[in-house]
Each structure stands twice: as structure tokens, then as C-alpha cells.
């Protein structure tokens, strides 16, 4: 484990505020257990819990907070200078940070989703959801990490993407779903474990290739941006 990823991990977990991430997965598993215990049919509770809560809220929100936090927090308080002045190639800064963000998001989201999928249908659905959400965690983290280098307000811009693009437009204008990570995750999970609980709107090749393209593209963009990064004070 490189020093950069070690520092990033400590930056994420060194404060109490990472505890804020816990309620989301807990609620997810809690609702699944409650529905199962009361004997509601999975057809009824599956979509709101797995998709509505898990893939549409928990995954993007956790990825947003973690993904913009790994680099954005350091840029915010100015300590990014200490890393930038070390004789490290930029990719050795971006990649470990991306790896940490993906791992933390993936574990926080995949474990409860796996449990919920297991309760809803089968172990296969649980594993499919876990695998697909890990892919989604990578794509979201790459996107939000690049955003934190492109703008001073990465969280708000990320929220525009999650709330307005995926949430609002995605439910009205169906064409925008081709550019929605959430839809890729749903499609991939549905492909691995076909059930009637998940309904993907994009084709599997599109989902797979676009997830890969977003992950790689935004990582390359982040490395490139960090190459010519200028540390400026807060302006607004």
C-alpha cells in the first residue's frame, strides 16, 4: 500500500464524520430485513429498496461524499500542496486516491446491497448487485474525483448530475439514460442475475463499454488536470 493511499485512508477515517456514512447502508439492510420478516412479496419491496434506495440514492451519495473527499478535502484546506511538491508522477497520486475511493464506496454499498439482494431473491442476485455496484462505484468515483479537480464546487456539480440529470431528467426524458451510471449498474446487475426486480433501459454492451469509458476517461482527465493544477485561494 503506497503512502498516498495510506494518507487518503487516514484523511477519510481520521475524523468522526465518516460515521455519517453509516446510516445509509444500515437503513437499506434494515428495510430489507423488515420487509422479509413481515412476509411482503419481493416483487413489491424489491424495486423501492434495491433500486430506489440502494442504486439511486446510497451508491451515488456515498460515492459523491467519498469521491470528492479524497482529493477535494485536501484542495479545500490547502494541504494538497504537500503532496504536489513531492517528486511523484501525477498518476501515482490520482490512482491510489481513486483506488481508495472505489474500495471504500464499494464496500459501503456492495455489502448491504448483497444482503438485500440475498433476502429479495437469491444469492445470485445479491452477488450480481454487489458486482454491479462495485463497477458503479469505480465509475462514480472516477467522475467525482475528476470533478473535484475541474471545479471548486465539486459536490454541487456532482449533485446536479445525480439529482437533476439521473433523477429528474432520467425519469422524464428517457434518452438521457444512455449517459447515466445508475442505468448501467441496473443493466449489468440484471444481466448477471436475470430477475423481474430490475429493469435496465440500456443494452448490456452499451452499459459495459460506457462504464469502462467513463472510468478510464475521467481518470485520464484527472491525471491531466493535476499536471497543471494551480493552487488558488477561495474566491467566491
Amino acid at each position: 500500500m503506497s503512502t498516498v493511499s495510506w494518507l487518503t485512508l487516514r484523511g477519510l477515517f481520521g475524523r468522526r464524520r465518516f460515521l455519517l456514512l453509516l446510516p445509509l447502508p444500515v437503513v437499506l439492510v434494515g428495510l430489507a430485513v423488515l420487509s422479509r420478516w413481515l412476509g411482503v412479496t419481493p416483487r413489491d419491496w424489491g424495486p423501492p429498496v434495491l433500486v430506489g434506495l440502494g442504486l439511486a440514492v446510497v451508491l451515488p451519495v456515498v460515492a459523491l461524499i467519498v469521491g470528492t473527499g479524497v482529493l477535494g478535502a485536501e484542495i479545500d484546506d490547502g494541504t494538497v500542496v504537500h503532496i504536489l511538491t513531492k517528486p511523484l508522477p501525477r498518476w501515482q497520486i490520482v490512482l491510489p486516491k481513486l483506488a481508495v475511493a472505489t474500495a471504500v464506496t464499494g464496500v459501503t454499498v456492495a455489502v448491504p446491497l448483497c444482503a438485500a439482494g440475498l433476502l429479495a431473491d437469491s444469492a445470485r442476485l445479491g452477488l450480481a448487485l454487489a458486482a454491479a455496484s462495485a463497477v458503479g462505484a469505480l465509475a462514480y468515483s472516477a467522475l467525482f474525483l475528476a470533478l473535484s479537480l475541474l471545479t471548486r464546487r465539486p459536490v454541487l456539480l456532482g449533485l446536479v448530475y445525480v439529482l437533476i440529470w439521473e433523477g429528474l431528467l432520467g425519469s422524464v426524458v428517457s434518452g438521457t439514460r444512455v449517459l447515466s451510471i445508475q442505468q448501467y449498474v441496473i443493466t449489468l446487475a440484471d444481466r448477471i442475475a436475470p430477475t423481474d426486480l430490475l429493469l435496465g433501459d440500456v443494452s448490456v454492451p452499451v452499459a459495459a463499454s460506457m462504464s469502462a469509458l467513463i472510468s478510464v476517461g475521467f481518470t485520464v482527465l484527472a491525471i491531466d488536470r493535476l499536471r497543471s493544477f494551480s493552487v488558488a485561494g477561495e474566491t467566491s
Partner: protein
Amino acid sequence: MPEPTGVIHDIGYQRYTGPRLGRRAVFGALYLHGLRTAFGLGRSAKAKIFPWLVVGIVTAVAAALTAIRAQIGEAVMTYAQFADNMSWLVIFFVAVAAPELVSRDLRSGVLPLYFSRPLPRADYPLAKLLALATALWLLLGGPQFVMFLGAAFSTGDGMSGVAEELLDLLPSLLYAGLWAVVFASVGLLVASLTGKRAFAAGGIVAVFLMTTPIVGTLSVMPSRTVNELAFLASPSTLVGGVGSWALGDLLVSEDQRGVPIGGFGPVYAVVAVLLVSGCVALLLRRYRKVAAR
């Protein structure tokens, strides 16, 4: 012992003899400043992007609805449904505005400066809360007023048509006020917990979004009572429940049904009051100690 040689020069310091404005003026200034901050007025162009993006989208939707209504002659959405459908944008606006209002002051540590003025502890959070609620009310009420103007000018019944339209508008403005108060109190409480604007925005969105699927799950539970009480779980459906109980006939026409809450209307009203007063109480509690760190 030598004679003291120091002299005190009169360099012209003067006492302030003008009028001294009291608590009300401080409160008013904080409120006005908060309201301007929520929309990014008096700040750089960067600070205006996100608030005005939301205002722009909401107004554009209202204008589109008005145009459709003028063409086909019947309303696509009532005023109250407009407020309900804009809930994601309202959440986003709270996530933009609430951290600007309170998290910046926490982070830059200027609260001791505020509290060294004749300003009681409770006034600071209350002024901010009032400012955020006003901003949200303007955000929802402004486009409704645009829709009203469109309807009033395209009505075929003369003044009686306008009066009827006005009677539709007024309860909806009240309903928008309910939205504003509930969302502002919850959002400001979350934002006041952290000095980092990024975390505050994420936290606000997490709190509001997380609760909506809980409603979805509870409303498929095998008990009718639970189904009818499910809408308590999320602020937006809670507001919808109170609205359809208190202003029911005024908000939705006969063929559309409001939130199906059965006979639990008073429960919804009580919970809404408890939620708002609980959030305000926690906010005041937070500001009793916050600057003393």
C-alpha cells in the same frame, strides 16, 4: 527618580454619537443578508450559478406549463402539484443555500464577532432560518405566480375567472410556505452540524433522499394503518399529507386524489409541527455552545 516623560497625545479619536440600532436592526440585517446570500446576490458570479440554475429551471417549467395551458385550455398541473413535482429541485436548492448560510460562518470562525454585538444567541439561527424559508417560499411561489398571471390573462370569463384563479393560487402559496418551513428547518439543522460546505450539502441530500424510498417500502407493507402512516417517513410526503388534509379540496380537484392518508390527517399535522419545532430546538441548542470552542 527621573520625571516621567511620556505624553498622551490627542490623536482625534471620537466617540460615536449617532443613533444606536438595537436588536431588531441586527436581526433585520442578518435576515436580509441571509436572503441575499441564498440567491448569491452581492457575491461573485460563481456563487450565483447554482441558485439561479434552480430558479431558471423552475421558472422555465412554470412558463412551459402556462404556455401549454394557454394552448389546450386546461391545466396540466395544479399549483400544489407543481410544488410537489419540484421537490428534487427544492432539495438541491436547500443543499446549495443552507451551507452558504451557516457552514461558512462556522468554518471561518466569525461567530464570536457576531455574538459580541447586542444579538441574543437565539436570534442568529432564527434569522438564518427565516431567510432560508423565505428564499424557498420565493422559489416555489414565484413560478406559481407566473402560472397565475398566464392563467389570469388567458381566462375567458373576465374578472370572475381571475378571482377564481386567485382563490386557487392563495392556498397553494400557503402550501408552498409549509414546504419552505419544513425543508428549511431540516436542512439548516443538518448544515449547522459541519463547517465544511461539501459535507453539509452531501448530508442534506442524503437525509432528504434516503427517506423517500422508506415511504415506498412502508406503503407496500401488509397493514393498512402502516400504509396510511407511511408518508410520515419523508419530509416531502409529510408536507403532501398535511396539505391534502388541511387544504384538501382547495389543492386538488375532485378527479385527482391527494396523498392517501385515510383518517390520519391530524397525525400528519402534529408530526409536521413536532418535526419543525424539534429541528428549531436542536438548532438553538447547537448555537448555544457552538462559538465557545
